């Protein structure tokens, strides 16, 4: 009866995740690999928020001064999860791209197949 069934969101998230993983696996370019990882994180977030809206919210008695007892609010766990994931994605992108830049500087290349210093 919901306007949009839950599984629609799950399908989109699955698609995003798979495409992101594909990008991360097949791209030579390090920045593109990071973009694939960002897509995967987005997929995770879509799932988290969809589950927050559809499944997780065991209604709990509202706490706090401005809500009368007897009202029920939906928990915010899924949203908090998504916000933290966004923050971590930002940190990941910052460090990851810094590494790309550092590698580029030492190898004059963007491409991961050439980053083989550790190969014996």
């Amino acid at each position: 009866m919901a306007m949009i069934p839950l599984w629609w969101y799950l399908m989109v998230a699955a698609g995003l995740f798979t495409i992101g993983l594909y990008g991360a696996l097949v791209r030579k370019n390090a920045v593109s690999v990071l973009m694939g990882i960002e897509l995967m994180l987005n997929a995770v977030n879509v799932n988290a928020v969809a589950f927050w809206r559809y499944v997780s919210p065991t209604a709990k008695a509202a706490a706090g001064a401005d809500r009368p007892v007897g009202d029920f609010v939906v928990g915010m766990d899924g949203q908090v999860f998504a916000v933290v994931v966004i923050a971590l994605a930002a940190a990941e992108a910052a460090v990851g791209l810094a590494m790309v830049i550092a590698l580029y500087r030492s190898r004059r290349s963007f491409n991961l197949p050439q980053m083989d210093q550790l190969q014996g």
Partner: protein
Amino acid sequence: MVDNWGFIAVLTLVAFTVPLIGLALSWLLRPHRPGPIKQTTYECGLETIGDSWVQFKVQYYLYALIFVLFDVETVFLYPWAVAFLGLPLFALVEMVIFLGILAIGLIYAWRKGALEWV
């Protein structure tokens, strides 16, 4: 809530039509006589030397980096600020710790010269 976003959806469509209408009108009215000299890259009358897609210095990236982290910080700052006056003092302490940790980051960046434009 639903209504508000519905309006924004309509406004988005309208917002995209505005530049398209402008372009369409101009396409009807303007002359079109391209030439090889006209279509050269504008560089004060000189020939362009080398590729125009030049490499930039790392300073730009450092600014963007600090920006991203502070942008994420504001994401946490806004819900806190809005809720603040209904919360106990504990919330203020938490936020002072949060801001303090990030201020250390800013000071570090400052000391390391990441804020210098060279």
